[in-house]
Each structure stands twice: as C-alpha cells, then as structure tokens.
C-alpha cells in the first residue's frame, strides 16, 4: 500500500515526480564526474605519451574483471526491480543481496589495486616514485586515476548503503507491486554508477595498450 504524500494528488503523480527527481539528480552527477573528466582529458591531450605509459601500469586483468563484475551487478539489479514489480519478496531480497555481493567484490578488487599501487610507490604526493620517463606528467595521470576511481568508489559505498536499506525494507515486506518506487530509484542510482565505470575503464586502463 503506497502512502500518498500530502502534496501529491495521486499515486501516479507521486511516482512520476520521484522518478523525474532521481533522473535530475543523476544529471548533476554526470556534471560532477564530468568536471574531473575535463581535467583528465586536457592533461591526456597535452601529455599523451606520459599518460599512455602510466596507463599501461594499471592491471588490465583486474580492471576488466571489475568491469564484468559491475555489468553483472547491473543485471542482478535489473532483476531485483523485476521481482519487486511482481511482488516476489524473497527473490527481490536475493537479487539485492547478489547485487551487493558483486559491488563488494568490485570494491575489494579496487582496494587491492590501490594497495598494489601503494607498494609500487605510485600514490601521488610526497612519496611518488615513477620508474618511467616524465614523472611529473605521469603523476598527473595517477592523480586523475585516484580521484576518478576514488570518487566512483565512494559512490559505490553509498550505493551499498542504499542497497542495505532497500534489502531491509524489502525483507520487512514494505514493497508491493503497487509500490516499489524506492527499489526503482535505487536501481537507477546503481546503474548510473555502473555507467560511470563503463567510461572510466577504457579512459584509464586502455589509453594505449597497442604498443
């Protein structure tokens, strides 16, 4: 039973407004990541060879696996919304759980990559040691890498938090075929975070692998 908030005239209006609100929020996120992507694009254009060399230092296997993990998590998320639409609470909770599991795997792999970079001395800042040429410009690559993937990871963590809340609410039986808007909105957010990674992966990992 969807509670109709007092400001809305009917459930349809409420759903329309909620969904539009979430898409607008996602538009703000596009601009937020986009600002950093501009910085990345400018420096990549100016210092291409340094960026290419630095990019080859990233672990393409881990990056590809992580991309696959997130793409699978988008499938499980879509399935979760599908189950919510049909009122299959048990399956809904399971698919949210799967999504969370895949998200956690993603973060685990990511933090492992960060740890590797730390061991290699590639954390930008005072202790940055680059083995190749053009350390200054390579450092810009790694600054962009950590900021972009770091911001993305932060959004993933928030996403996991959202999923936990959804899982708990779902398990308590709050969602019915008549009302599962939060699941839908959570799905939109999750898919968006996936889309960001879909762009980050080639931009960061695949600058110039063909040499």
């Amino acid at each position: 039973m969807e509670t109709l908030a007092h400001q809305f005239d009917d459930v349809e209006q409420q759903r329309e407004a909620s969904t539009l609100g979430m898409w607008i929020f996602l538009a703000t996120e596009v601009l937020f990541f986009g600002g950093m992507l501009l910085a990345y694009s400018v420096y990549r254009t100016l210092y291409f060879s340094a960026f290419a060399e630095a990019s080859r230092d990233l672990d393409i296997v881990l990056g590809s696996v992580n991309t696959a993990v997130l793409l699978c998590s988008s499938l499980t998320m879509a399935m979760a919304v599908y189950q919510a639409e049909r009122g299959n609470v048990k399956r809904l909770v399971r698919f949210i759980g799967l999504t969370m599991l895949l998200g956690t795997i993603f973060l685990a792999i990511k933090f492992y990559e960060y740890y590797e970079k730390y061991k290699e001395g590639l954390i930008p800042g005072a202790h940055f040691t680059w083995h190749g040429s053009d350390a200054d410009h390579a450092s810009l690559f790694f600054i962009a890498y950590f900021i972009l993937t770091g911001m993305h990871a932060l959004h993933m963590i928030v996403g996991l938090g959202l999923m936990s809340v959804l899982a708990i609410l779902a398990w308590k039986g709050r969602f019915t075929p008549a009302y599962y808007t939060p699941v839908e909105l959570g799905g939109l957010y999750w898919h968006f975070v996936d889309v960001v990674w879909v762009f980050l992966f080639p931009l960061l990992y695949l600058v110039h692998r063909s040499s």
Partner: protein
Amino acid sequence: MIRTYIKVWAALLGLLALTVGAAYVPLGPFNTITAMSIAVTKAVIIALYFMHLRYSPRLTWVFAGAGFFWLLLLFTLALSDYATRRYMPSPTVWLP
C-alpha cells in the same frame, strides 16, 4: 522481459571483450574513438533497458540527455582553448 535483460547483459559483456581486444590493435587515434564509441553504446543500452528509459516518458529522456549534453558544451568550449593555443596564443604582452 528477463530475456531482454539477459540479451543486454550478454551484449555488454561482449562489448567489454571487444573494447579490451580492440585496445591491443594499433589504430592510432582511432583507438580512443573506438573505445569511447563502445563505452557510449554500453551506456546507452544500460540506460534504455536496465534503467527503463525506453519505456519512460519523453521528459525523462530530456533530463537523461541533459547532463551529457551540458558536458559536451563544457568539453567543446574548454578544449577549443587548448586546441588553438598553439596557433592563436594569447599575446604575452598586452601593451607595448
């Protein structure tokens, strides 16, 4: 509907394989273009099918596209500065 989701998921994984594979082929500047085109394709099918954009009202499409369109404005105008600095730099001395 489930079938659609599976197809989209398979396509996404296929495109992932494609983008990784293509990265190892020396295409010069087209490497970036290829990678970005594949990324855009993935993003579009995630938006259309997983995010239900295909079944959403036109207004939603406008806002879904607005962010990317605005990003395009930012990129185009800002990069036009960098693209032309070598050819039309700001004079280092404005007044004699």
